[in-house]
C-alpha cells in the first residue's frame, strides 16, 4: 500500500517540479535585432507606400487624374471609406505593415543605436562614434520625410506624443504648422550632424549605398519641400525663407542625386507597381483623359514612355492616345494603357527627385524668396531633368521646351499655372507629390467627376479624412483635431493650401 501512496505522491510532486518561468521564452524569434535591419526595413517600407498603386493603399494618381479606373470607380470618385484607405496610408507610415517598417522601426532602430556604447579604448572609437551620429541623422531624415507626408495628407496629426508605444496609446494631435517648424529644426540638425568622411549604415542603406554626401542633398531637398509649403501658407515667412535659402545651396543638382530605391526582378522585391499592374493580372487602371489630352496637346515626348501605343484600327494602324474618362467606366481594351517602362519589375522607386526640386526652386523664386537662379531657369531645368530621367533624348527635350506653349516666358497663364501644369506632367507616377503640387498651386485645374461621392462635397479632395481607427480608438483627440482643422472632411484644406 505504501508503494502505491508513494507512487501517487510522486506523480504529483514530479508534476510541479519543472520550472515554469523558463517556459515563456520565444525560442524562434529574436527580441533584439541589428539596428541596421530595422533601418533597411523602413527604407523599403516607406518607399513601398510612396510607390504602390494598390486601391487599398495609394490612390493618389487617381485624385490627381493622371490615371483613372476601368470598372470599379470608387477611388476615382473619392469613395475612400469602404476600403479603409486612410487607415492603411496612416498605418503604413506610423506603424509599418507586417512585412515592412515605417516610423516605428525607425524609432526603434534609433533607440538601439543610442543605447550602443562604444568604449573609448576601442581602436575604431572615432569612426564608430561618428558613424553612430551619421546613422541617427539618416534615420531622422527619413522620419522627417514620413511626417511631412502624413501632415500633407491629413493636416494635424499626432507628433509630439506619437511613437511613444505603451507610453501613450492615445496620442494627442499637434498643429500641422507647428510640426512643420519642428521638422525644419530637426532636418537642420540632421544636416549638421552628418560627417560625410565617415560611414553610416553602409550596405544596409538601400537608397544611396551609404553615400552620405547625397544624404545631405536629400535632407536639403526635403527641407526645401517643407520650406516651400510653409512659405505658401504665409504663416511663418521668416522661417520659410531661411529654410529655402539655406537648403537651396545644397539640394539635388542632377538626376544622379535622386533619392531612389532599387528593386529586383523577382517578387516580392519588385517595384510594387509591377505587382499591382502586371503580376496581379488585373486591368484596373488606364491613363486619364484629363492627363492624356494635356500631354498630347503639348506634344510632350514623354507620352511614349508614359503611355502605351496599344490602340490600333482594324488594319493595324496606330490610333491616337485615348485616356479614360474620370468617373466613368472605361473598358480596358478601348483606352490607352500605361507605358511599359513603369511596369518593369525593377523600375526604380522614387523618394524625391531632381525635377521636383527644380520646380520647387522655380516656385520659391516666384514666391519672392531670394535664392539663386531665375524662375525660368529652374523651370527649364526641372523639365529637362524630368525628360532625362524618363530617358527622353536632349533633342526631343529641347524641341519640347522651345514650344511657345512650354517656354516659361510664353506659356499661358500665371506662374502658378505654368509651374503647376508642368509639375503635373513631370510628377506622373508621383501621385502624392503631384496632388500636393496641385493643391498648393491650384493648377492643373482638375474638376471632380459628376458622380463624385457626396463626401467630397463637389470638390476634388484637399485632404484625406482621418482613419476610421482614429475615429473609434482615439476619439477624444480625434474630435479635438477635427474641430481644430475645421472639420474632418475631404474639402478641408491643409494649412499651406490657403485657397
Amino acid at each position, binding site marked *: *500500500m505504501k508503494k502505491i*501512496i508513494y507512487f*501517487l*505522491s510522486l506523480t*504529483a510532486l*514530479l*508534476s*510541479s517540479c*519543472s520550472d*515554469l*518561468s*523558463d*517556459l*515563456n521564452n*520565444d525560442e524562434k*524569434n*529574436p527580441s533584439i535585432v541589428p539596428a541596421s535591419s*530595422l533601418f533597411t*526595413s523602413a527604407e523599403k*517600407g516607406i518607399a513601398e507606400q510612396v510607390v504602390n498603386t494598390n486601391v487599398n493603399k495609394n490612390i493618389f494618381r487617381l485624385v490627381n487624374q493622371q490615371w483613372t479606373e476601368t*470598372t470599379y470607380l470608387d477611388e476615382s470618385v473619392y469613395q475612400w*471609406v469602404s476600403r479603409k484607405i486612410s*487607415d492603411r496610408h496612416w498605418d503604413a507610415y*506610423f*506603424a509599418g505593415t507586417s*512585412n*515592412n*517598417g515605417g516610423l516605428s*522601426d525607425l524609432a526603434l532602430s534609433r533607440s538601439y543605436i543610442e543605447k550602443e556604447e562604444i568604449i573609448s579604448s576601442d581602436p575604431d572609437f572615432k569612426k564608430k562614434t561618428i558613424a553612430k551620429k551619421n546613422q541617427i541623422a539618416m534615420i531622422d531624415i527619413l522620419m522627417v520625410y514620413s511626417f511631412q507626408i502624413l501632415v500633407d495628407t491629413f493636416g494635424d*496629426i499626432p507628433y509630439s506624443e506619437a511613437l*511613444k*508605444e*505603451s*507610453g*501613450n*496609446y*492615445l496620442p494627442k494631435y499637434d498643429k500641422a504648422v507647428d510640426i512643420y517648424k519642428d521638422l525644419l529644426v530637426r532636418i537642420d540638425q540632421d544636416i549638421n550632424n552628418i560627417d560625410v568622411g565617415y560611414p553610416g549604415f553602409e550596405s*544596409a542603406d*538601400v537608397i544611396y549605398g551609404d553615400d552620405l554626401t547625397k544624404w545631405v542633398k536629400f535632407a536639403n531637398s526635403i527641407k526645401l519641400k517643407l520650406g516651400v509649403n510653409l512659405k505658401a501658407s504665409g504663416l511663418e515667412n521668416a522661417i520659410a525663407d531661411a529654410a529655402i535659402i539655406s537648403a537651396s545651396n545644397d539640394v539635388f543638382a542632377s538626376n544622379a542625386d535622386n533619392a531612389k530605391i532599387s528593386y*529586383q526582378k*523577382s*517578387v*516580392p*522585391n519588385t517595384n*510594387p507597381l509591377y505587382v499591382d499592374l502586371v*503580376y496581379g*493580372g488585373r*486591368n484596373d487602371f488606364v491613363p486619364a483623359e484629363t492627363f492624356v489630352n494635356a500631354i498630347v496637346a503639348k506634344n510632350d515626348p514623354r507620352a511614349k514612355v508614359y503611355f502605351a501605343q496599344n490602340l490600333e484600327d482594324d488594319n493595324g494602324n496606330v490610333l491616337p492616345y485615348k485616356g479614360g474618362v474620370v468617373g466613368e*467606366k472605361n473598358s*480596358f*481594351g478601348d483606352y490607352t494603357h500605361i507605358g511599359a517602362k513603369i511596369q518593369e519589375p525593377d523600375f526604380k522607386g522614387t523618394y524625391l527627385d531632381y525635377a521636383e526640386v527644380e520646380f520647387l526652386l522655380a516656385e520659391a523664386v516666384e514666391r519672392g524668396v531670394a535664392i539663386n537662379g531665375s524662375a525660368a531657369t529652374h523651370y527649364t531645368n526641372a523639365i529637362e531633368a524630368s525628360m532625362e530621367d524618363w530617358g527622353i533624348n536632349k533633342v526631343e527635350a529641347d524641341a519640347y521646351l522651345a514650344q511657345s506653349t512650354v517656354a516659361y516666358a510664353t506659356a499661358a497663364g500665371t506662374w502658378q499655372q505654368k509651374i503647376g501644369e508642368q509639375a503635373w506632367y513631370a510628377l506622373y507616377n508621383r501621385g502624392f507629390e503631384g496632388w500636393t503640387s496641385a493643391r498648393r498651386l491650384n493648377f492643373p485645374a482638375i474638376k471632380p467627376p459628376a458622380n463624385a461621392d*457626396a*463626401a467630397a462635397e463637389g470638390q476634388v479632395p484637399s485632404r484625406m479624412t482621418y482613419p476610421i*481607427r*482614429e475615429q*473609434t*480608438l482615439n*476619439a477624444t483627440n480625434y474630435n479635438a483635431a477635427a474641430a481644430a482643422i475645421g472639420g*474632418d*472632411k475631404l474639402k478641408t484644406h491643409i494649412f499651406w493650401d490657403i485657397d
Partner: protein
Amino acid sequence: MQSIIKTKLKMKQKLKVVVMLFFVLASQFTFAQGKKITGTISDSDGLGLPGASVLIKGTNIGAQTDFDGKYVITASSNQVLVFSYIGMKTQEFPATSSVIDVKLLADAQELESVVVTTALGVKREKKSLGYASQQIAGKDLVDGGAGNANVANLLAGKAAGVEVSRNTNFGGSTNVVIRGNKSLTGNNQALWVIDGVPVDNSNSNGANQASGGKGYDYGNSVSDINQEDIESLNILKGAAATALYGSRAANGVVMITTKKGKKGDDKVGFTFSSGFTVGTIDKSTFPKYQDKYGAGYGFGSSFLNNNAIPTVDTSNDASYGDAFDGRMVYQWDAFSPYSKNFGQATPWSASANGPVTFFNTSKSNINSLSLEKSTEKSSLALSYVNTLQTGILPNSELKKNQLSARFSQKINEKLTANAYAAVTLQNTVGRNTTGYSGNIVGAFRQWWQTNVDVQELKRNYFASEGQNITWNWANPNASKLKPAYWDNPYFARYQNYSSDNRTRLFSYTSLNYKITSWLSALGRVSLDTYKELQEERAAVGSIASVFGLSPVNETSGYQRYDINFQEINYDFMLNFNKKFGDDISLNGVVGTNSRRNKRDNVLASTIGGLVTPGVYALSNSRYELPFPIENKASWGVDGIYAQGSIGFKDTYFVDASIRRDVSSTLPNGNNAYTYPAISGSFLFSNLVDKEWLNLGKFRMNYAEVGNDAEPLSLVNTYSRSLNFNNQPIYTLPNTNKNSNLKSERTKSFEVGLETSALDRRLGFDITYYKTNTVDQIASTAVSSASGFTNAWVNGGNIENSGLELQLTGTPIKTENFSWDVSINWSNNKSKVVGLPEGIDNLQLGSFQGGVSINTSRGEAYGSIKGTDYVYTNGQRTVDQTTGKYLISGTSDNTIGNINPDWIGGVRNKLTYKNLSFSFLIDTQKGGDIFSLDMYYGLATGLYKETAAGTIRETGIVNAGVAPDGTVNTVSTVNGNLKSTGPGKYSNNYGYLAQPNKAFVYDASYVKLREVSISYNLPKSLFKGTFVNGGTLSVLGSNLWIISKNLPYADPESGLSSGNKSRGYSTGSLPTTRDIGFKLTFKF
C-alpha cells in the same frame, strides 16, 4: 529558476503535509470482525451512487459508498443489510453472499435526487449544489444531430444561458459561450472536459480569416470528441461551479462523462448503429436573383460593341446592365472552344441555371460499433466510429475515424485503475473559403452576372479537363484569355482546394486508492495531443489573390501549416465523504494540478507561383522560399486547491473552495494568484410538508476565478521578412506586448431557485447571475500613431448579468403515452464598466466595408460602428441633388450591437409505447449583424429588390427629409446618374447609395432545430436471434428557419468561432437542411 524556488518550496511543503496525512489515515484504518461484503449501489441507469449508505439492520454499524457507488462492509451472514439513499426506495438484503449489488429505484414520494458530475469529475447529489448546472443525457444529445460531426452543434437550444453559434461552414467551427462574453478580447469559449480532464478546443484559423480576409475555417478541435462515448453531458455555468479548474474555467465548463462498461444481462454487449443523412440547401439562406437585367454597370454597359451581334462585356462582375431582351449576343462561352456555344451567339436572357444549382446534396454516413461489458472486477467500453461526410460544395469531403477504449480494473479491494484513450483521425478536403476575397460563394452573393449559366460553367470545366474557363474574362476579345476577378467556380473548387488532417490522441490513466470508507486518493495523468497539417493550393492559371507568405497576390502556389499541440495534466487529489451521525455530512477534495502545454507551428509557402502545374510542394516554388514562420511556445500552470462541503440534516449545505495558481505566462512576481468560491443551498422543501412539492431549493454563491495571459505576451520579438537587395530585414510586429501584465479576475455572484412538484412532473429552475471581469488581459487595437496597431493591455471591468430559466414538465403521462416539455430561456446583458488605462475603446475587429466591432465604455460589449444616415429632426436626410441619403462623414457611429436580447429553446418529446417523437425549436431574439453581401450585392444589382418595377430607370424616392426638414420628393434618378447615356443608371441601393447602417440587420431567428422520431423495434422481432433490441430513428436538423430578418443568409452565419464570430456576414455558405435515418441494434 531561482525566482520561483520559493513558490516551489511552498508547494512541496504543502504536498508533504498531504502525503503525511495520507499515511496517518491509512495506518489508523482497522479491520472489523466478520465476513467482508462488497458491491455497488447504483441508480436505475446503472450509475454508481456515491454517499449511499449500507447499514447492518438493528445496529449502528454502517458504511458509505465511494464515488463510484462501491462499498465494503463486514457483516455476518445472519445479518440483514439495509441499503438507502435519499430520494430512493430503501431495500434490504440478507448478508449471505460476498458480493451484493443493489439497484435502487427512485421513490416518487422521496425528494428528487439526481447525481451529477461536478468539477474534476466529482459526483455529487445535485440537490446539495449551490450553483446552477444543467445535465443533458447522451442520448438526448446525439439523437438531435443528424449527420453532425461536431459535438458543439448539439448543444444548441438545449441549455439555458448557453449561446451556441454554429456557422454554416463545411466542417467549420462552432462558438459556445456560457453567460456572455466575459473577456474583452480573449477567449470566451466554454472549457470542455472529459471525465475531469480538459480538452483543447482551439481553432487554428489565421488572423486574416478571423477578420474577414481570405481563409478557411478549419473548425474547432472539440469536434474530435467521440459522440458515441458520451454517457452524459453536464454544463457548469458559473465560476462557483468551475473554480476548481482554475483559470480556464472562468467561461463555464461543458463536462462530458464517458460511458463505462455497464453490468447487465448476459448478452454480448455490442451496439451497432448506422446513420445516413442527406442535406439540401435552405433556399431562404441564398440570394433570390433578379431576372430582368444582365451583366454590366449601367444601361448600355452590357456590351463591348454595337455590332449586330454584340459581345458581352464579361469583365463586369455585376448585373446592373442592359435589360434582357432575348436578342442574340456573344457571351463568355462563345469564346471557349470547349463550349457547345463556341463561336455561337446565344439569347440575352437570365440564365436557366443560376448559382443555386452549384450546390450539391450533402451526404453523411456515420457507422459505429461499440461494446460495453463489465465483470466483477473490470469494465470495458470500446467504440469505433466512422464518419464520411460530403458537403454541399463540389469537392468537399470530411472523413473521420474514431477509436476509443475505456477500461476499469479493480486491482484489489482498495485500488482501482482506470484508463481511457480516444484516437481521432480527421481528414478533410475542400473546406469552403470564407471572407471577402477569393470566395466563390461571396461572388454569388456580391459579384455575379445573372446571365451566366452555372451548368455551362460546369460543362466547360470538365470538357476542358480542368481549365479555368471563366465567365469573367478580363477581355473576351484578347488574344490570350484571362480571368478578370473570378475563376470558374468549378475550377476554384476542384483545383484551388484546401486539405487538412489531424491525428489526435486524448487519454488518461488514473489510480484510485480507497484509504478508508470515507477517504480516497486519486492520481491521474492525462495527455491531449494532436498533430495537424493544413495545406492550401492555388492552381496555375488562377486569378491572383492573397496567398501564403507572399506579400504580393499570387496566381498559383502552395502553403503548408504544420501544427503540433500537447497538453499534459498531472493531478493528485484526496477525496473525502463522511457522515457524522444522521445530520451532518462532510465531503470535499484537496488536490494539486500541474499542467504543461506545448504548441509548435511552422508555416511555409511558395512564392512567385509554381513551376510545374499540379505539383503542390514547397520545392515547386518559382523563387526561393520566403523564410517560414516558426512559432514555438510552452506554458504551464501549477495549482493547488481545496474544496469542502458540509451538509446538515440533508437540508443545509455550504460549499467552499480555494485555489492558488502559478502561471508561466505572467511575469515573475505577478504570476501567482489565489481565488476563493463559496456557495450554499437550502432545501426548504424539507421544512414544509407539502404533498405537491417534491423539491424546493434555494441556492446562492460567490466565486472568483483568476486568469493568466496567452503565452509569449510579455516581450516583443521581431519577425523576419525577405531580404531586400541582400540585406536582412526585421520588422517590429504590429502588436506591442506587455511585460507588466497581472492576472485577470472574474468575480461572479449567482442566486437561484429550483423546484420540483406534482410528482416531479413540473420542474422549475431560475437563476440570476452577475459577473464582473476585472483587470482584463486584452489584445486590442490602438492608435497606430503610437507605433503599434495593437497592444496587450491590462485593466477594465466588464459586467455581465442575466436571468436563466428552465422549465420542465410532463403534461401527460399514462401507461403508454407521455409528453415531456422542456423550455429554457436566458438573457445576458453586458456592460463595459471600465476600460484599461490609456484606452478609450477596445476594438474587436475592423472589417471590409469600413465597419468595426467595439467595446466602448458605458456601452454593451460588441457594438457595431460605421457610417450612419444624417438625421434632420430625427428623419433621414436626403441629398436634394442626387436623391440619395446623406451619409455621415465619420465611421464612429454606433449602428448596432451583436449581442442578442435573449435566447431560448423549447423541446417537446412525445412517447407512445415504443415510438417517440421529439422536436426542438431554438430562438434568438435581437442582436445585429452587418451584411457585406447586401452592401455590395444591392449595388451590383443581383437581388430581386434592385429590379423592382422600373426603379432602375426611374429611381426611387427615398423616405426622409430634405436638409431643410421638408419631406423629400427628389428621386434618385434626379441625380447625375440618370439614364442619359451609356454607363448611367440610377443607383438606388447598396454601398454607394446608403450608409453602413442600412446593412445592419436584426439577427433574430426562430428555427426548427431538431426533429427526431425514434422507434424501439419490438423485442419479439428478434426472438431467437442474437439481437437484443433495435431502434430506428429519423432525424432532422435545421429543417426550417421559421422566422428571420437577415435577407438571403442565415443570421447565425459568421466567419468562424471566437469573439468575431458573429455580427458580420460575408459570402457564407447557405444553411444545410439535414434529414437522416439511423438504425441501432444491440446484441
